[in-house]
């Protein structure tokens, strides 16, 4: 726990620096864009230049999303009296897991979730459990598929649903036993989704 908090502080500090770097790149490319707009008629490579600035702007946006998710991750081990925001935790996890999913040519889609839904767990615990479920699903899903995740409320509980492989197939996944053990430790319920497809994780309710 202590080491997780330490790494979190280090990561949070680094994401702050990364934001400053992105802010500087955005202003510098913005300045080039401003100057180009003032003098494009006399500049033979204006179109190519604009294209390059467009790429810079896109990459800054991409970096901003990643640093936001990484910053969330950095604070995830901290205990919050209100409990973790389920949607935010799953959103950060999905954002940071896209690359490992892409290695199996699987795209992750997060459905618009129920905002403000909380659990007594810490964000890192929500991410750990959903991440283990994600790994199990990726292990048995055919290459080149899409995996949809959603955050819902069911009977007052925060629920994370993975629509994808059949529940019985999931139980054959490499990480299934580890997921079951982790869920038990954290007080998370595991069951099949509608029609025996996918997996539903029912998170413990926040302390009153």
């Amino acid at each position: 726990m202590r080491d997780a908090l330490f790494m979190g502080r280090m990561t949070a500090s680094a994401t702050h620096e990364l934001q400053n770097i992105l802010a500087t790149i955005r202003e510098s490319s913005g300045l080039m864009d401003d100057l180009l707009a003032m003098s494009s008629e006399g500049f033979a490579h204006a179109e190519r230049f604009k294209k390059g600035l467009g790429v810079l702007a896109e990459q800054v946006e991409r970096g901003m999303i990643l640093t936001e998710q990484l910053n969330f991750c950095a604070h995830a081990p901290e205990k919050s009296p209100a409990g973790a925001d389920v949607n935010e935790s799953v959103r950060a996890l999905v954002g940071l897991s896209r690359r490992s999913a892409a290695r199996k040519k699987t795209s992750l889609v997060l459905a618009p979730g129920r905002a403000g839904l909380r659990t007594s767990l810490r964000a890192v615990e929500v991410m750990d459990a959903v991440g283990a479920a994600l790994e199990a699903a990726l292990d048995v899903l055919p290459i080149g598929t899409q995996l949809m995740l959603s955050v819902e409320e069911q009977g007052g509980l925060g629920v994370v649903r993975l629509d994808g492989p059949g529940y019985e197939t999931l139980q054959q996944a490499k990480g299934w036993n580890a997921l079951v053990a982790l869920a038990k430790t954290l007080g998370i319920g595991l069951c099949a989704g509608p029609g025996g497809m996918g997996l539903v994780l029912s998170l413990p309710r926040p302390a009153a």
Partner: protein
Amino acid sequence: MNAKDWKILLVDDEREFITTLAERLELRGIPARVAFDGESALEAIAAEEPHVVILDVLMPGIKGLEVLERVKRTNPLVQVLLLTGHGSTRDGIEGMRLGAYDYMMKPLNIDTLIEKMESAIDYAKKAAALPGKSDG
């Protein structure tokens, strides 16, 4: 008030970022001065009474929120827009409680920044017209 008459002070220890931002504002006809730390920001505010201060919350030395508190004590009509990161949004909210006009997340969108500066200046003009507010 015309944008060329605005008095803007930009404060951040990220020198490249803040000087480039000043340059971009000046290209849009908005004069902007820069300070790279809390101490020189407070000196500039005392000397020039800017309409709006764009202030980073995380700086070495005097932190942004401390600068804000001091400004609000000495020059209450100076409007402060805080610059925060993802990890410092709580500072932004705390800053609003201490009297900041608003806060913005880095990296900035310059058009949004200019809109917020204009709205802060309008707010300061209205506040200055209220009885008992003679400064600013």
